[in-house]
């Protein structure tokens, strides 16, 4: 029986392999020993990932397959595997990981307290990722993990709730700015939209916009009226637009300067209603107009084109769906995607990771352009 199942499984993989030749320009897979829920670029060709089990976890810096970057000269490069280039150990889970731009440092948070751990990746011919510092959070006890945004090489914006967001000088630990809000909403995202202006997305849908140069009160944009029940919201901003996504799959696009108004709405085709803030990711494509990627609801990563959304809350279908993790998972439990990121320059290249430890890098074919 087990042999039969293995045969069927191999057959499914073979089917998918043939199909993938048509639907992807590139696709490379890698298997981590333990799953990650973070993927963070540390250069144009390397990413950091880390485990989230309750005890000791590995932090790894992976180099993407060289073959992916060969482009026209694909023949020149045979290396098709990911390579582990640096590694280290964290004492607890890693729920958030950010690269500090212009440095070889990454900062992590374990989701248990609001303190951050600072790491140095490699250096001096070493292949070790080692702990080189820490940053204290505003409140030591926290129910949820801290979000981290790193605008400049010396400053970190971090916080677990809207009431404890602060900008800390990395080297000295000096607090340069604190966000003053009335409520202590748990955050689902923290990101800079300019050198000094940032957006704090709350799980309840509220969005704060503030400028770290001023002590003026932040702008608060309440969450969109959701359809019944308590829902969670995730937010991403890029090029003046903000998208908010609910745990029931409702998506709203707004202009950054006018968050109260909805430019367009849609009901996404998501399979389940995730209720953990760490599960879902929504992100704008950095090099494609009006495209978002959504993951965390299932074993797939979905790409949607927001330019076809209207003001009515219509059901929409994804432009592309990466089902690789679900198809190739041998685990009995339903696998779900834990993280995804877009490549900063290559328009259709993404990385995704799933709960079974798989990590994929893929460059999808836009069938609508064929």
């Amino acid at each position, binding site marked *: 029986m087990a042999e039969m199942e293995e*045969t069927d499984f*191999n057959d499914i993989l*073979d089917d998918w392999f*043939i199909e993938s*030749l*048509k639907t992807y320009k590139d696709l490379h897979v890698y298997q981590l020993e333990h799953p990650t829920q973070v993927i963070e670029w540390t250069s144009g060709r390397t990413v950091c990932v880390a485990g989230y089990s309750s005890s000791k976890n590995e932090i790894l810096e992976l180099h993407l397959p060289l073959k992916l970057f060969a482009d026209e000269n*694909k023949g*020149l490069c045979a290396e098709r595997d990911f390579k582990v280039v640096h590694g280290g150990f964290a004492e607890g889970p890693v729920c958030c990981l950010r690269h500090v731009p212009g440095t070889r440092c990454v900062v992590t948070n374990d989701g248990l307290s609001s303190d951050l751990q600072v790491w140095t990746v490699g250096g001096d011919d070493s292949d070790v990722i080692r702990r080189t510092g820490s940053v204290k959070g505003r409140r030591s006890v926290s129910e949820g993990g801290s979000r981290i945004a790193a605008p400049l090489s010396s400053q970190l914006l971090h916080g677990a709730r809207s009431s404890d967001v602060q900008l800390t000088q990395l080297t000295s630990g000096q607090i340069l700015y604190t966000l003053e809000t009335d409520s202590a909403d748990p955050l689902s995202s923290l990101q800079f939209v300019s050198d000094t202006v940032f957006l704090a997305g709350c799980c309840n849908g509220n969005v704060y916009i503030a400028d770290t140069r001023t002590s003026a009160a932040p702008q608060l944009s309440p969450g969109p009226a959701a359809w019944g029940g308590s829902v969670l919201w995730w937010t991403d901003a890029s090029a003046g637009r903000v998208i908010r996504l609910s745990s029931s799959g409702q998506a709203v696009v707004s202009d950054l300067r006018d968050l109260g108004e909805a430019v367009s709405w849609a009901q996404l085709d998501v399979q389940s209603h995730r209720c953990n803030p760490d599960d879902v990711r929504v992100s704008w494509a950095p090099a494609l107009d009006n495209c978002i990627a959504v993951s965390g609801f299932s074993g797939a990563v979905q790409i949607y084109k927001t330019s076809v959304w209207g003001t009515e809350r219509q059901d929409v279908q994804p432009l592309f769906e990466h089902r690789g993790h679900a198809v190739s998972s041998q685990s009995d439990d339903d696998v779900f995607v834990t993280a995804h990121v877009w490549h900063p320059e290559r328009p259709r290249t993404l990385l995704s990771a799933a709960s079974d430890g798989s990590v994929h890098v893929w460059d999808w074919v836009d069938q609508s352009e*064929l």
Partner: protein
Amino acid sequence: MTYITPMFSRRTVGRLLGAAFTSCRCFHTELVGQESSALPIVHHSSYACELPANHRFPMAKFPRLLHFLIKDQVITEKQVWVPEIASEALLSCVHTEEYLNNLMNGTINEREQRRTGFPWSEGIVTRCRYETGGTVLAAEVALQRGLACSTAGGTHHAFPSYGSGFCLLNDLAVAAKYLMGISSPKRKVLIVDLDVHQGDGTAFIFKEEPCVFTFSVHCGKNFPLRKQQSDLDISVDDGLEDKEYLSTVEAHLPWLLETFGPDLVLYDAGVDPHWEDELGRLRLTDQGLYQRDLYVMKTVVSRGVPVAAVIGGGYSRDIDKLALRHSILHRAATQVWREGGM
């Protein structure tokens, strides 16, 4: 080599059906190669057909291969034999009636089409039939001349009732079955499949057939993951290079020839073990492929056994580079032909 006068003019030969007459000297050819003292090359302009834009299958490699062989003066047009299209009768010696009907009528279902990697079209079916006809002709000519090469062929993932992995019809199986004959003593055919993907369709088709021996050297981690059982499977690891690869072939081919004693060898010289191949996971170089092809054909020919070679698989977005890689086979064959005084 015996000098053979072509017994049929191109017009009459074209009308023959694919009946399995082992003693018949008719070739399945539209045009007999005019240069009788040179290596026979089997090619048809219909080996290639139109595919949807951006389709992954490197269809243009077939005409480009011939182009380079002529341009580089490896062969002349006079060496080219043009195959007939494989008839339904010929194909039915391997494929089921239902599958052939669906194929001719365009009633292959969505899922099956997806598995082949080709959206169905009349054109794709026609080109696959010509390809199969080409392999059959190469085998026929090899029996007469000792050595022949097609500029296509190696569609070893096709099963009797369905296609898979860019293969709609199993040309090697049809050729082996046809040349095996129906009356005793049947010809013994050895299929040497060195494409980087296992010849699963062929293995399945001849599993119970003692007169056909299937030998496949392939990379274990490549498609298909669901493997069949050839008579001899050698599954190699990722990254294998020239030297170890050649040793592997050298370790098995001579004793196979010795113990099985084939009357004909069909050789699938897939170039996808090459390190630049987009899908293959091995690391052969151009030189490695050349040494391999030279070794296989020399070893077989020197035992007085005829060998018909097909180009097998190769995947690259650079069609010219790929076509040149495939031409390694024909260059090696030319060398063998010359050295053997054939």
